[in-house]
């Protein structure tokens, strides 16, 4: 016996044992490295996006003293008055020694063209303002905004920066008088798209996304759940059923642009639904989301134990009563989780929307399902291609908002799974 015992602890076995331990340690470290790399990429993504984007939530404003003299409003149509001229004249009163045409142009370019529209809206809402003088904060031009946020280096030669020396002097003068200030950028959350970064907002795109997803949810959820119930509970086990099942699983992996092409051919060219509307977008995304929802719904129906069904049959319930009174309520949490994840994917989709004309410049905020609209990821795509530098930070801010929505939706899915999950 003794020699055998000794052989267990012999050098050879010790070596083997050591190798097995080493393999385990190596695997553990490989795993830790993989996770660290993944987390580092994620951290890099968040830091770069938030670092670029946080400044877009504030916007530079300039305070002007506007003088709404009565002679500007000779025309009874209030939208015809020269609001731009009023803004310009108040800039001239602030800097009376600016005289040459070129300098005047530089001076006027300090404030955004949005100032005139703001004034117009104020006067239209309250015509009693005509004839009065008051102080008004108007948005500054995007170049001024970039200067205030430190994105323009004033030490560069004058010809290669967008803020000229004389403009820099004016801004410094305004700053000393407390007439320039960074304020919360409400425009970003209330306006539609614009070619002027200081007037651009994501509300139009957010609303477009909302309408599109509303259609998707209303169509994909009932159809998906009904299909799943039929396939799981009622469908006969034939070759046809198997064929349908394989196809649904394949559809879930089809690239989304294909659904866009399909939507273009059927919904727009054949049915004649207007292009660029949330209605057609929602229909296309429904096609894309359906397989995901069906698969998730089937999995959660499958996880309801057969004993529930047998018990229901045992007390005399019909097939349909069994399904709708017992199986469906128990499977619903899993179905909802799958739906939310499918919707989150639909929210982040751009490629199919490209084909149906939702990648478009749309200023007006969509008010119904048939108004032209874009979606949040499309807005990001469009801004990424704009030459103005101020769009870089606005783009990152839009990404922050989109990520916020996605994280909220996924968190809701996780929460529902934990709260309603039934352990058998």
């Amino acid at each position: 016996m003794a020699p055998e015992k000794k052989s267990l602890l012999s050098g050879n076995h010790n070596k083997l044992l050591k190798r097995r331990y080493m393999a385990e340690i190596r695997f553990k470290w490989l795993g830790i490295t993989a996770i660290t790399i993944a987390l580092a990429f994620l951290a890099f993504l968040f830091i770069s996006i938030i670092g670029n984007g946080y400044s877009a939530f504030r916007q530079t404003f300039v305070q002007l003293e506007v003088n709404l003299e009565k002679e500007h409003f000779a025309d009874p149509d209030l939208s015809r008055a020269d609001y731009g001229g009023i803004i310009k004249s108040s800039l001239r009163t602030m800097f009376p020694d600016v005289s040459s045409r070129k300098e005047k142009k530089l001076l006027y370019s300090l404030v955004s063209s949005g100032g005139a529209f703001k004034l117009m809206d104020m006067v239209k809402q309250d015509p009693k303002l005509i004839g009065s003088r008051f102080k008004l904060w108007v948005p500054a031009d995007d170049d001024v905004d970039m200067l205030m946020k430190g994105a323009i280096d004033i030490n560069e030669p004058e010809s290669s920066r967008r803020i000229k020396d004389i403009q820099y002097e004016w801004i410094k003068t305004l700053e000393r008088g407390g007439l320039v200030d960074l304020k919360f950028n409400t425009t970003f959350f209330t306006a539609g798209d614009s070619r002027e970064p200081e007037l651009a907002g994501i509300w139009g795109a957010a609303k477009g996304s909302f309408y599109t997803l509303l259609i998707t949810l209303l169509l994909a959820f009932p159809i998906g759940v009904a299909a799943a119930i039929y396939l799981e509970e009622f469908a006969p086990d034939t070759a046809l059923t198997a064929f349908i099942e394989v196809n649904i699983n394949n559809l879930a992996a089809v690239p989304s642009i294909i659904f866009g092409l399909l939507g273009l051919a059927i919904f727009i060219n054949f049915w004649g639904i207007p292009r660029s509307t949330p209605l057609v977008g929602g229909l296309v995304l429904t096609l894309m989301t359906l397989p995901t929802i069906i698969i998730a719904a089937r999995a959660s129906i499958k996880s309801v134990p057969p004993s529930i069904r047998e018990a229901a049959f045992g007390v005399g319930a019909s097939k349909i009563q069994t399904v709708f009174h017992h199986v469906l309520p128990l499977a619903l949490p899993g179905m909802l989780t799958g739906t939310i994840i499918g919707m989150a994917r639909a929210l982040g989709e751009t490629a199919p929307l490209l084909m149906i004309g939702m990648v478009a410049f749309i200023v007006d905020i969509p008010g119904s399902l048939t108004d032209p609209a874009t979606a949040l990821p499309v807005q990001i795509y469009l801004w990424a291609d704009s030459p103005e530098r101020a769009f870089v930070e606005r783009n990152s801010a839009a990404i922050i908002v989109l990520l916020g929505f996605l994280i909220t939706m996924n968190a809701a899915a996780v929460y529902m799974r934990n709260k309603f999950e039934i352990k058998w």
Partner: protein
Amino acid sequence: MKGKGLLAACALTAAALVTSPAHANRDYISIVGSSTVYPFATVVAEQYGKTSNFKTPKIESTGSGGGFKLFCSGVGVEHPDITNASRAVKSSEIKKCMENGVKEIIEVKIGYDGIVLANSKKSPQIELSLKDIFTALAKDVPGADGKLMANPHKTWKDVNPELPDVAIEVLGPPPTSGTRDAFVELAMEGGAGKFETLSALKKADGKAFTAVAHTIREDGAYIEAGENDNLIVQKLQANPNALGIFGFSFLDQNADVVQGSIVDGEAPTFENIADGKYPVSRPLFFYVKKAHVGTIPGIAEYLAEFTSEKAWGPEGYLADKGMIPMPDAERKMFADNVKELKPMAAK
């Protein structure tokens, strides 16, 4: 209960589908077309939407070719009213328009766009000739004996002894882009014509010449950087040895980090492009469906806004965005055409 809820939801959506005004009147202008004209057309559309009582036009960026395809597919509210283009309409496209009943088209030239080669400000400014551009970027170039051979040039110094000894690395748009079309047509073809053998070929066999002049090398010296010009600007900052090809408005906005290369002795400045001295510039257009004027509200007003001096004039807001205005006489001619809604003559 839940089943009923689902049914109700279905019914609601079905109702929304049925009542959707598929062929009802459209009360906004629908514009498609070139991504080069997009940044200018959108400014006009926004200005028009804010100052008029009409809705802001919807502008899709589909590329010039895609724009014509949609534009020429017919007359009626489901088809776009205007298409933007960074090149003139082709006769094949006019033919397609005619076949689909789009008979009268108004052509409006709006201005010019310069295509620039630029590099990072960390490196010295580069001076090129069109011939250098062709020699550096063509797939096949004439050798010393005049016969075509695969492009052997690795560095700019190989191309022209006066140029710096750095590897040729050019970031540019992919073949689907209108900017690329214009670049090969103006810069590459112009450069190819400087070779005696190639200009002889042009006279003998135009098609063979075009094939040589328009084919960009694929051995890695020319890097297709996608349609996003911002991305090219960023890559140039990261790599001071690379050159990038993009539109003038991006140079204009990023003049603190990149500099335009001098081509044939002319720097890509606003003035040089406007005077026609800078060789790589192209006209921009839009095309209007005459049958839609009066049917879709606001088209005439949009045209008036676009062709007004405050928009496309030398001091206008489009010039601020980087578009190069046309000379006075040309502007007047096109503005008059627009006022009379004069359709273009058949090609």
